[in-house]
C-alpha cells in the first residue's frame, strides 16, 4: 500500500485505484480473448463443392495457456522470461470446438488446436495474471513491469494505440473546393465505404447531392429520399426543413430536381439511380478494369431498379441497418444530415472540428488482433476448403476422411500470421484495404520510464511529412485525456501523443441492451414519427446510438438524466456516454470501443459525493479498502466521462470551488499530465517546452531498467551502479514506484560560472565525486551466435583456441592473443577481459555449402542404394566464422547462456560488460529539460567549498536559467535542500502546493532558515584555488541529475579498413577542391 502523509486529500487515496496506467492494452486484449474471439467463429462454416454433405462448423473458440512447442510432440508451459531468453514466442494455442461430418456420421470434437496466438503479458491468459509480488519474483519477473506487450521471437513488441477518426459518424466540413459537405465513413464487418452529402452552389442556387463511389454521378438528395420510399414532396420538405425556414428556403432548390429528372415515384427514383450505377460499370469495363464493389447475387440478370435498391440498402451508408428494405432509419438519417449541412452553410460555426478529440477513436491491440484473427481464420478456412475438396475428389480412399485429424489441418497459418504481423508491424488485411506499417514497435528498455512511456503512447494515422498544424496542435478537448507535455520534437511532433494519467480507453459494450434501455426510457421509434414531429416540436430530440438514429424523444434531459443514473448504478455499462447537444437537437449515446474517457468525482448540490468517511473506516484492511474502491463507480461516487460528455459537465478543480452548478469534481489537477511528465518536479513552474524536452530525455536516462535487469539478455542495457531515489519526488512517481527503479542521482549543484569550460550548457564535474562512484554506469551488450545443424547432417561447431605452437611469436603473437578469453569449448569464460578483436565465440562452419553436399549425396544414393555419402559429424573441412568483440575500450564477459529455441537452433548468448565513469563529453540532464555535456572534470581541491565543508558535485552556468525559465528547477533545489536538512524526501507534484502534494517554496525557505542556511538557497563559497571568499552568494543545493545514454565512448568512429594511400588521396582531393573553390572566389 502506498504511504500517504496525513495532510493528503481524500481524492488522492482513490487515485491509485483508478490509475489504469498501461491497463488499456490489457483490458483490450482481455476483451478480445474472452469475448470478441467467440463472435468470429460461429459465422464460419467450411463446406465442400465436391461433397455437398460435407461440412464443418465451429461451435466455440477459446485460448489456452501459454506454452512453447519444443518439437512436434511435446510442449512445455512457458514463462515470459524463458521466452525472452530463448528467443521464443510467448504464445498460447487457440482451441476450437467443432462439429463436422466424418464419412456418414456427424462428429463433435472439442479442444482442437487451430494455431497459436501471442499472449499479452499480464493479460488474463498470461501466467503473470494477478500474481502477487513474491510470485512474480519467483517467476523472475519485475513486479513493477507494466505488461501489455508481447514477446515475439524473444523480442518485446508493443502494439501502439492508433488514433483514428471515428467510424460511422458524420463530420460536417468544407472539402478541398470549399464546398460544404458531410463526410460519413461507414464501417461494418462486411465492408467499409465513404459517402458524402454536399451542398453544391449551382446556377439555380444551392443544391444538395449525395456522393458515393458506386453511384456514378452525384445523385440529388431528393431523389435518394424518394428512392428510399419517401415519395411525397411534403414529407421530404418536412423531414429536412420544417424546423427552420431558412433551411427550407435553401432546400427548396433541391426539391425541384426530381421533377426535372421526371422522378415522381420510388420506382422511378430507383430506376434513375440504377441507370447511374450501370453507367458507371460501363465506364469502368470500357477501361478494362473489372471492379465490382457490389454484386448481390453473383449474376447480373436483375433489373436496374432492384440493383439500385440493393445498393441503397446495403452499400450506401451501410452502417445504418436496413431490414426488409425498410428505409425509415436511413431516410431519417439522410434528412438529418442534409439539414445539418445546410445549417452549417448558413452558420459556419456549426462546422465540425476534425481534430476535436470526441471525433477520435483509439484502436488498441485487442481490436487490431481481432481484425487480424478474423482475416487469418478466414484464410485458414478457405485453405481447409481447398484441401478438403482435393481429398474428397479422390473416389476410393482407404480411410474415412477425418478433417480434424488429417494432415490438411494446418495450424501454422494462424501462428505464422500473428508472429509475422507483430514482429514486422505490417498489418495487411485485404478485406478492409488495410495496409499499415509500423503498427508495432520494440519496447524500449532504456530505462524504466521509457518502458512505461511506451505503453501510453498514441500514434496518429496522419502523414508525418505534411506540415499541417491542425492535427499537431493541442486541442482543448484533450484536457485530462492526453498529456500536454509528452510529445516528441521534430516531424512527429503532436502526432505521437501520450495518454494522461487517468485516461482510460473503452472497449465495446453491448449495443442491444443499451438500445433496449433507451426504448424503455421513452425513446419513440422512428416509424411512428414524421418530419414535422421531429423538427417542429420544440423539445423533440433525435436519439443517436453510436452514430445511428434509433429514435426520437420528447423529454431529452430526462432521458439523459435517467441513463446517467443507470450508468452510475452499473445497470448499463460504466463507460457508456450520454451527451445532449442542444444545437443539433440530439442526444448522442455512445457505447463503442476506443473512446477515451476519464474518471471524475460526481458532485451534487455543491458537495462532492466522495466523503472522507467512505474510505476512512475501511483503511485498516487493505482488502476491504480495495473493495470499497471497487464500489465507487457502482455507488455513484465516481464515473467515467468521455470527451463528448465532458461538454455537458461543469467540472470543479477543487472542492472549495464547488457550487450548485457543478456536476463533477476533478480527481486531481496533476492528472492532466502523463506518467513521464510526472518525473518533473514542480512542472507547473516551468516554461512548457522544457517539460516536453524532459519527457523526451527521461526516456534516455540511465538507472534501473527493471528489477530483473540482470536476468535479462537485452541487446543493450544501460544501468547506473548507484542509482538514487530523487530527493524531490512527485506523487505520480510514487504511483509507478519510481523510487524502486530510479533513473539518476542526486547531485549537489552549484549555479556559478567556473573555469570557462561551462559555456553553452556544459557542466563541470567534481573528480573526487566521480572517484567515489557518482553517476558511474554499466553498459551490457549482447553477442549472439547460433550453432546450426544442416539438412545434410553437417553442423557448425565451436572449438577452443589453436595450440600455441602454431604461432611463431608465441604468446606475444597478436593473433594468438585474440583467443585469450576462450575456454576449451570455444566459448569465452565468464570474467575474462575482452580487448578489441578478441574472439567471443569461436564458431566454425562446414566449408561446403549445405545445398551442394545435399544434392551430391542424393545423386549417389540413387545410384548406390541407401548409403549416404557424408557420415554425419565428419565433414571434410571447416572454416572459421567466429564472433569477435569490436570496440575501442575493453569489456568483461558477464554471462554466457547456452540454450535452444523452437526451431531447434542451438543458441549461444554472451553478455559483455563495461563499467564507465563519467568523462568529458558525456551528456547529463536535470529533470527540467536542461541537458548539457561535461566540459571539464576538476579535482576537489580546486572546487569551491562552503565553510561547513560542502563541495559541489556539479557546477552549472547561471546563463542556463534566464532564457529557459525553468523556475521548477530552482524550486526543486530549494525544496530539496530543505528536505536534505530535515532528512526526508520533498514533494514536487504538479499543481500540488495547495493540495498537500507539493512543498511550498515558502515553507522550504523557512525550514532552510531554521537549519542555518540562507532562505533563498544561496551559500557563501570560498575559491578552491586561491582560498578567497567568492564575491557573490552561490545558489547551491541538491538537484536530481540524469545521465543520458549518449556517451562519448560510443561515439568513437573510425574508418574500418582500406589502404592508407587511397585515404591520403581522398584527403588530397578534398584539399584540391577547397583550393579550386578558394581560387574561384579570388
Amino acid at each position, binding site marked *: 500500500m502506498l504511504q500517504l502523509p496525513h495532510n493528503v486529500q481524500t481524492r488522492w487515496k482513490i487515485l491509485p485505484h483508478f490509475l489504469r496506467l498501461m491497463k488499456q492494452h490489457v483490458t483490450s486484449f482481455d476483451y478480445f480473448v474472452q469475448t470478441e474471439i467467440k463472435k468470429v467463429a460461429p459465422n464460419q462454416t467450411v463446406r465442400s463443392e465436391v461433397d455437398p454433405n460435407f461440412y464443418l462448423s465451429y461451435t466455440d473458440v477459446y485460448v489456452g495457456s501459454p506454452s512453447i512447442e519444443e518439437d512436434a510432440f511435446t510442449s512445455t508451459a512457458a514463462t515470459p522470461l524463458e521466452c525472452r531468453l530463448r528467443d521464443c514466442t510467448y504464445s498460447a494455442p487457440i482451441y476450437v470446438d467443432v462439429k463436422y461430418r466424418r464419412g456418414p456420421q456427424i462428429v463433435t470434437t472439442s479442444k482442437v488446436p487451430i494455431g497459436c496466438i501471442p499472449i499479452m503479458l499480464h493479460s488474463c491468459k498470461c501466467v503473470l495474471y494477478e500474481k502477487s509480488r513474491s510470485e512474480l519474483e519467483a517467476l523472475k519477473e519485475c513486479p513493477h513491469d507494466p505488461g501489455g506487450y508481447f514477446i515475439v521471437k524473444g523480442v518485446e513488441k508493443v502494439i501502439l494505440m492508433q488514433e483514428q477518426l471515428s467510424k460511422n459518424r458524420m463530420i460536417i466540413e468544407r472539402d478541398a473546393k470549399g464546398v460544404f459537405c458531410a463526410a460519413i465513413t461507414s464501417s461494418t464487418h462486411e465492408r467499409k465505404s465513404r459517402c458524402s452529402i454536399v451542398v453544391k452552389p449551382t446556377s439555380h442556387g444551392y443544391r444538395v447531392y449525395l456522393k458515393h463511389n458506386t453511384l456514378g454521378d452525384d445523385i440529388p438528395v431528393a431523389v435518394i429520399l424518394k428512392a428510399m420510399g419517401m415519395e411525397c414532396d411534403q414529407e421530404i420538405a418536412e423531414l429536412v426543413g420544417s424546423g427552420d425556414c431558412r433551411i427550407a428556403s435553401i432546400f427548396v432548390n433541391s426539391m425541384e430536381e426530381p421533377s426535372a429528372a421526371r422522378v415522381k415515384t420510388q420506382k422511378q427514383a430507383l430506376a434513375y439511380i440504377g441507370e447511374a450505377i450501370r453507367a458507371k460499370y460501363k465506364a469502368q469495363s470500357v477501361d478494362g478494369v473489372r471492379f465490382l464493389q457490389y454484386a448481390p447475387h453473383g449474376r447480373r440478370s436483375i433489373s436496374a431498379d432492384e440493383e439500385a435498391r440493393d445498393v441503397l440498402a446495403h452499400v450506401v451508408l451501410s452502417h445504418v441497418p436496413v431490414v426488409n428494405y425498410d428505409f425509415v432509419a436511413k431516410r431519417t438519417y439522410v434528412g438529418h444530415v442534409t439539414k445539418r449541412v445546410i445549417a452549417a452553410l448558413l452558420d459556419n460555426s456549426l462546422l465540425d472540428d476534425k481534430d476535436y478529440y470526441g471525433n477520435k477513436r483509439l484502436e488498441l491491440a485487442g481490436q487490431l488482433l481481432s481484425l487480424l484473427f478474423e482475416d487469418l481464420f478466414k484464410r485458414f478456412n478457405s485453405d481447409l476448403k481447398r484441401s478438403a475438396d482435393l481429398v474428397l475428389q479422390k473416389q476410393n480412399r482407404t480411410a474415412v476422411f477425418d478433417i480434424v485429424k488429417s494432415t490438411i489441418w494446418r495450424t501454422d497459418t494462424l501462428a505464422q500470421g500473428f508472429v509475422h504481423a507483430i514482429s514486422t508491424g505490417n498489418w495487411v488485411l485485404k478485406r478492409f484495404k488495410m495496409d499499415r506499417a509500423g503498427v508495432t514497435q520494440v519496447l524500449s528498455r532504456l530505462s524504466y520510464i521509457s518502458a512505461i512511456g511506451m505503453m501510453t503512447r498514441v500514434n496518429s494515422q496522419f502523414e508525418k511529412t505534411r506540415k499541417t498544424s491542425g492535427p499537431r496542435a493541442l486541442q482543448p478537448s484533450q484536457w485530462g485525456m492526453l498529456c500536454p507535455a509528452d510529445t516528441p520534437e521534430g516531424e512527429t511532433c503532436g502526432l505521437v501523443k501520450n495518454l494522461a494519467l487517468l485516461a482510460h480507453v473503452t472497449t465495446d459494450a453491448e449495443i442491444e441492451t443499451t438500445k433496449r434501455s433507451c426504448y424503455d426510457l421513452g425513446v419513440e421509434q422512428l416509424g411512428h414519427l414524421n418530419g414535422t414531429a421531429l423538427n417542429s416540436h420544440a423539445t423533440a430530440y433525435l436519439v443517436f446510438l453510436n452514430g445511428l438514429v434509433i429514435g426520437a424523444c420528447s423529454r431529452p434531459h430526462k432521458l439523459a438524466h435517467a441513463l446517467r443514473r443507470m450508468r452510475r448504478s452499473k445497470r448499463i455499462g460504466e463507460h457508456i456516454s450520454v451527451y445532449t447537444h442542444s444545437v443539433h437537437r440530439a442526444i448522442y449515446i455512445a457505447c463503442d470501443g476506443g473512446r477515451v474517457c476519464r474518471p471524475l468525482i460526481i458532485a451534487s448540490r455543491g458537495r462532492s459525493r466522495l466523503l472522507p468517511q467512505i474510505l476512512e473506516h475501511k483503511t485498516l484492511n487493505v482488502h476491504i479498502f480495495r473493495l470499497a474502491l471497487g464500489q465507487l463507480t457502482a455507488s455513484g461516487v465516481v464515473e467515467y466521462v468521455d470527451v463528448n460528455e465532458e461538454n455537458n459537465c461543469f467540472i470543479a478543480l477543487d472542492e472549495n470551488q464547488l457550487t450548485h452548478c457543478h456536476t463533477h469534481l476533478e480527481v486531481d489537477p496533476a492528472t492532466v499530465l502523463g506518467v513521464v511528465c510526472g518525473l518533473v518536479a514542480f512542472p507547473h513552474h516551468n516554461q512548457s517546452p522544457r517539460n516536453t524536452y524532459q519527457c523526451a530525455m527521461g526516456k534516455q536516462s540511465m538507472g534501473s531498467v527493471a528489477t530483473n535487469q540482470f536476468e535479462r539478455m537485452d541487446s543493450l542495457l544501460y544501468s547506473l551502479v548507484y542509482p538514487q531515489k530523487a530527493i524531490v519526488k512527485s506523487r505520480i512517481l510514487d504511483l509507478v514506484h519510481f523510487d524502486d527503479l530510479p533513473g539518476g542521482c542526486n547531485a549537489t549543484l552549484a549555479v556559478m560560472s567556473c573555469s570557462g569550460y561551462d559555456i553553452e550548457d556544459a557542466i563541470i564535474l567534481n573528480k573526487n565525486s566521480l572517484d567515489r562512484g557518482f553517476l558511474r554506469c554499466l553498459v551490457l551488450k549482447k553477442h549472439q551466435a547460433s550453432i546450426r545443424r544442416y539438412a545434410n547432417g553437417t553442423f557448425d561447431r565451436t572449438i577452443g583456441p589453436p595450440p600455441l605452437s602454431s604461432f611463431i611469436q608465441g604468446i606475444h603473437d597478436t593473433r594468438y592473443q585474440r583467443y585469450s578469453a576462450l575456454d576449451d569449448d570455444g566459448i569465452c569464460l565468464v570474467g575474462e577481459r575482452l580487448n578489441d578483436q578478441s574472439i567471443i565465440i569461436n564458431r566454425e562452419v562446414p566449408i561446403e555449402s549445405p545445398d551442394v553436399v545435399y544434392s551430391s549425396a542424393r545423386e549417389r544414393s540413387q545410384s548406390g542404394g541407401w548409403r549416404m555419402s557424408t557420415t554425419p559429424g565428419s565433414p571434410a573441412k571447416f572454416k572459421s566464422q567466429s564472433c569477435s568483440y569490436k570496440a575501442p575500450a575493453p569489456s568483461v564477459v558477464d554471462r554466457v547462456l547456452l540454450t535452444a529455441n523452437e526451431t531447434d537452433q542451438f543458441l549461444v548468448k554472451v553478455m559483455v560488460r563495461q563499467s564507465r565513469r563519467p568523462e568529458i563529453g558525456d551528456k547529463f540532464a536535470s529533470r527540467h529539460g536542461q541537458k548539457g555535456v561535461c566540459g571539464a572534470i576538476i579535482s576537489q581541491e580546486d572546487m569551491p567549498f562552503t565553510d561547513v565543508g560542502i563541495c559541489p558535485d556539479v557546477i552549472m552556468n547561471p546563463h542556463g536559467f534566464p532564457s529557459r525559465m525553468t523556475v521548477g528547477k530552482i524550486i526543486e533545489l530549494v525544496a530539496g535542500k530543505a528536505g536534505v536538512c530535515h532528512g526526508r524526501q520533498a514533494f514536487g507534484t504538479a499543481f500540488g502546493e495547495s493540495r498537500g502534494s507539493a512543498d511550498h517554496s515558502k515553507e522550504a525557505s523557512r525550514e532552510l532558515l531554521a537549519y542555518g542556511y540562507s532562505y533563498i538557497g544561496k551559500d557563501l563559497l570560498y575559491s578552491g584555488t586561491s582560498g578567497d*571568499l567568492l564575491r557573490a552568494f552561490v545558489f547551491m543545493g541538491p538537484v536530481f541529475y540524469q545521465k543520458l545514454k549518449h556517451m562519448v565512448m560510443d561515439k568513437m568512429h573510425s574508418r574500418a579498413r582500406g589502404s592508407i594511400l587511397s585515404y591520403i588521396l581522398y584527403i588530397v582531393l578534398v584539399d584540391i577542391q577547397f583550393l579550386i573553390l578558394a581560387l574561384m572566389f579570388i
Partner: protein
Amino acid sequence: MSCYSVAADQRARRPEVEVLSLEENQMSFEVKKTDASMANALRRVIIAEVVTMAIDLVTFEENTSCIDDEIIAHRLGLIPIKYAFKPGKTKLREDVSNDEAAAMSSERDIQRRFRFTRDCDCDGYCDWCACTFKLHVKYDEVIKNVPEHEKNQPYTVTSINLESDDPDVFPVHFVSERERNTSSEPGIAIVKLAKGQEIKLSCIAKLGCGKEHAKWTPVSKCVFRPKPTISWDDNAVRALPPNLRNIIVDVCPAGVLGYEDERDRTSIVVKNEAAILDFTKDIQDLTKQLSPQNKPMFHASASTTDFVFEVESLGGVPVDDCVLCGLNEIKRKLTNLQVAVAEVAAEQA
C-alpha cells in the same frame, strides 16, 4: 566582504596555531598571522597530497555475488586503511637508517615503512611497497554462526572480513566510537551474499595520494574560513526598544545572534561566528533601517590573517597527523623549491 591582498610589507611572518578542539576524528584549529593563500595551501595539501594507503589491485578467485567484480573492487578501494607503527615490532625500510627512525619515530610517517610502488625496484609489488589483504566469505559457512532467527537473511560482507597479511596494516571499520555504537553493521558494508553465494579475492593496498584518486584522501572534510572581526555599536543597540532588538536577533537563523545575557537582553552578540559572514549584509541593512541616524550598528569583515580550520578524518590517518603530514608536505615542497632556486642561481653565477 572585502577583497584583500597580501600585505605590502614583506616582513617575515610568524604564523601561530591554536588548537580549538581535538576529538577522535575531528579537530578545529586557528591559524593566525598568515594569509589566505597559505591557509588554502594547507587545505589543498591535506586533501590531495597526504600519502595514505588504499586497496588498488583486486584479484578475484570467486565471485558469485550479485555485484560485479569492478564494483566490488571500487568499493574495496574506498575502505580507509590504517597503518599503525609499533615501535620495536614494525620492521622499517632498510634504506631508512635506524637513527633516523628512532629520532622521528612516528606512526604518521607511513613512508618510512612503505615505498611508492613506482619507486620500488621490485617486480610488481613486494612487502615494501604494498600490503595484501584476503577476503573469503562463503554464505553457507558463515551462516552457521548466525542466530537462528537471522538464518534467512542475506549476509553482509563488511570490512571485518578483510584479513590483512601485515599486522600493522588493517582496514578501518568506523571513524569514531560513536559511529561504532550506532551502526547496524559490524563494519563497512561491501556486498550482501545470499544462499549459495561465495566471494573469494585477494587485494593489494598501495601508497598513493588524493591527487591520483579520491580513495587516498585521508579526510572527509577539510575547510577553513577567515575569522570574522565583529563590532557592534552597543550604545545604539541599547537605545533600541526591546521588540526591535528581537527583530535583529531573528533576522538570522536561530543560533547565529543572541543576547549577551539572556535575562538582561540589552546587548546583542554573535553566537555563531562561522555563519555570521553569510548574514552580515542582512543585519547591516536591517540595523541601518532601524537606526535614527541611518547608520548600521553592526560591522563584520573577514580577517585576512586569521583562519579557522575544521578537519575531519576518515580514520585511516589520525586527524592531527593529517594536518602535520600536510605541513610536512608543504615544507618538503618549499625545500625542493629552495634547492631548485639555489641550483638555478648557482648556474647563473
